[in-house]
């Protein structure tokens, strides 16, 4: 049976970050996932904390770390080094971020004409972070025929002061305009989507023409200093070069506004992380769901994946569960009113079933279900109902951790990064399972040396 020092289940920000840290340290890591997930659904930023009232992500982290039961209570110190690590890793893949934990949280526009408070965003969204100068305008630029970004209603909404939440001085533009531009070759097309536009922007000749048209449209709207809000479609494979061209050709600074799925900023983050993981020798299989994890006493022994026939079994030293929360399938609601963790049937900390249907999913204090998850010790081992470590070689990361309200607190990416770092350290420090050590002696990579004796 193939053997891994660590099997990571889940290919989101938490799973990939943990995999990269482990592979970096020389561990043999198998990352398995049932499909692509949260990265493709999210705006691509690295939101660490933005609870109401916090001025900076760092202040937000401190505030959350003071809450009993919040993951930051045990992981607060890991966010800063974890963030630095992930930024360095993806920067080496050509994906850069702006903003820092000590910079003020800024309100930036969304694709439905609202705002969200952010600290660390992809470079493509970076220009939204700068304070607005007096008289500065915001040009919301849409693309003719593109259905996921409507400049006129977005601009009308952003023109209302109340939309710019907690924006102090320099917190919002003086006026907001809407323009729409027809991009080359798009006239009369149906089904123009973010992926097609992203790929079109990867073509240098096409994008130069496109930016020239955008420049003309922006200038037709008015004069004066300002910034352009543009849908997040500025390239997939060649994003950094697209941003350079935008800066060179456009009369105003541009920032991307993340869109409904598929999120190109998220896709870029996923690809950078995946490439970094593979570059370090990590092995990744997508599309083969884990159907169960076999255990022996307080140890997980074998991760069992579905296959066309039979099963694929991987002997694991450690198992990192990065399977996500309710949206990702890491937690599932059972018909009997129980919230369950499907792979190891871990004890789930969850609100009573009558709170599952609480009215306001986006309430300022969060939805009761957001907090549901697995309770762990400081090393991220899952705890059973009596508070004892349930499995000594299983570690929990990301939104599967109990006690976070990742929508209301905007802490999901920070929890993912911090827990990935902690889990990697725990796995590296802990003894490998006996079975894994035994089987490692005959795994394919090692057999090479002894084959011709």
């Amino acid at each position, binding site marked *: 049976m193939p053997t891994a020092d660590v099997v990571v289940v889940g290919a989101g920000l938490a799973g990939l970050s943990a995999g990269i840290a482990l592979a970096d340290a020389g561990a043999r890591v198998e990352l398995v996932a049932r499909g692509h997930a949260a990265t493709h659904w999210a705006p691509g930023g690295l939101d660490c904390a933005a609870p109401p009232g916090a001025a900076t992500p760092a202040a937000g982290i401190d505030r959350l770390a003071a809450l009993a039961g919040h993951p930051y209570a045990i992981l607060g110190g890991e966010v800063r080094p974890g963030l630095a690590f992930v930024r360095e890793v993806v920067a080496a893949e050509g994906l850069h971020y702006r903003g820092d934990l000590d910079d003020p949280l800024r309100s930036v526009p969304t694709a439905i004409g609202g705002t969200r408070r952010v600290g660390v965003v992809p470079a493509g969204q970076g220009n939204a972070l700068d304070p607005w100068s007096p008289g500065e305008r915001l040009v919301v630029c849409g693309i003719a025929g593109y259905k996921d970004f409507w400049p006129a209603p977005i601009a009308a909404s952003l023109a209302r002061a109340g939309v710019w939440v907690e924006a102090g001085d320099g917190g919002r533009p003086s006026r907001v305009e809407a323009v729409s531009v027809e991009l080359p070759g798009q006239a009369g097309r149906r089904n123009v989507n973010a992926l*097609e536009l992203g790929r079109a922007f990867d073509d240098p000749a096409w994008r130069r023409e496109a930016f020239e048209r955008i420049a003309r449209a922006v200038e037709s709207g008015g004069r004066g200093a300002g910034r352009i809000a543009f849908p997040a479609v500025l390239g997939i494979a060649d994003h950094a070069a697209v941003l350079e061209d935008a800066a060179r050709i456009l009369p105003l600074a541009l920032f991307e506004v993340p869109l409904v799925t598929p999120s190109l900023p998220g896709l870029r983050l996923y690809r950078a992380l995946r490439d970094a993981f593979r570059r370090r020798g990590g092995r990744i*299989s997508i599309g083969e769901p884990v159907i169960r994890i076999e255990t022996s006493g307080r140890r997980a022994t074998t991760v069992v994946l579905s296959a066309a026939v039979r099963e694929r079994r991987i002997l694991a030293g450690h198992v990192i569960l990065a399977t996500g929360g309710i949206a990702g399938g890491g937690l599932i609601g059972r018909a009997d009113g129980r919230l369950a963790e499907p792979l190891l049937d871990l004890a789930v900390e969850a609100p009573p079933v009558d709170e599952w249907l609480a009215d306001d999913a986006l309430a300022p204090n969060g939805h009761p279900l957001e907090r549901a998850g697995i309770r762990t010790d400081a090393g991220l081992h899952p705890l059973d109902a009596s508070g004892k470590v349930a499995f000594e070689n299983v570690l929990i990361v990301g939104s599967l951790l109990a006690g976070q309200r990742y929508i209301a607190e905007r802490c999901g990416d920070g929890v993912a990064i911090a827990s990935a770092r902690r889990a990697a350290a725990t796995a590296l420090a802990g003894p490998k399972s006996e079975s894994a050590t035994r089987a490692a002696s005959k795994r*394919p990579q090692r057999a090479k040396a002894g*084959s011709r004796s």
Partner: protein
Amino acid sequence: MTIAELVQEAQEANYLEVALSADECLKCNVCNTVCPVARVTDLFPGPKYAGPQAQRFRLATTLPAQSAIAPHDASPDHTVDYCSGCGMCTIACPADVKIAEMNNRARAELKAGHRPKLRDWLLGQTDLVGRLGVIFSPIANWGLHNRLGRWAVELVIGVHRKAPLPNFASSTLRARLKKADVATLARKGDDAATRAAEPPPDRAVVLFHGCAANYYEPHVAMAAIDVLRRNGFETIVPEQVCCGLPLMNNGLYAQARNRAATNIDVLADYARRGYRIVGTSTSCTHTLKAEYREMLDVDDSDATVVAQSTWDICEFLVDLHEQGRLDTGFGRLDERLPYHAPCQLKGHGIGIPAMDLFALVPGLEAIDLDHDCCGVAGTYGLKKEKYDIAMAVGDDLFRKVREADTARAACDSETCRWQIETATKTPTKHPVEILAAAYAAGDLERAKAPIESPAAG
């Protein structure tokens, strides 16, 4: 009937398992991010639109007839015909929607009731074409590999003049095996005594050679037989027909069911006696493993035992290695080897066994090219109207192969090999051919060793 019972019933009926999985769709578009066809053409709107989204319309016509559980996949438009069936969408889907399977069924339904195009009919008949082609191989190869001939084929039949067509072998694998005494050729009418004389299942496997190895590339099967023999396994080659996948790809489901029945009839007997069925074609083995059930609704106990006993050759060898039973006496192959994992392999869910095997060969530096699909997807890329799409899908892969600038490349699936070889002019081998070469290099090293060692020591 309770909801749980309804769900149970739906799960038991294969058709509904595929059809109703549309209900799990979150509309998240992840499938569209990985679709290699939508990446290069507007003619296909992407798996989400052609699959779960269009499925609403299909289900509207299906459900009233639910009792019959008959597929009735009327599509709202014809764009699903441009799906190549590579399966990347199903792999990427975080909600376990059977997108590719849904689209395959919808394509079949699109064609059901229409007389198939001559071209599509012909591309489905790989065994008939193969048999005739081998008999007339000198003239057939000449006809199919000169410009005038290919131009005529494109005009009359609709197979693109530049599409990768392999050479017919001068004789079939079965004919060669009759002469060379390296495998046991079994016939359907063999009596019990002949059966009993076959080597037992702990020392032999059953080879499913498929059409490619029988009519075009007997050397691939010969390499597999050699590699198996070195590891203590004789090869039994029973009578068999095309797995049926090319028929399914071209919407000829009734014929595909016939092929499935014939193969299952022969193979189930071996499987029940404990033999493993090993194939060199990842697409044939995937058909035996999964598509008879998922696509043809053939899931009786015979089909199940065949599926459970089927192994891709590299999967089989890695399994031997994990049991410590693989002969690792490979000689040095000092070369870089670009490798493409075909999309059908990903459907097996067995990882990338060829890369694990390459790692055992001293000196061999295999490079996983990490590309989704070469474009050809069985017979898709041969078609006049789809050739350009297929070439665009594989473009990045071809670039990587050319840039690697090596003597050869490797890939498990035959149509992908032909596509890569035609596009890049780099000879492209089955992994088992590479392994056979490494064993041969080992033989040579050992033969030389006694002469060289006194000088060295």
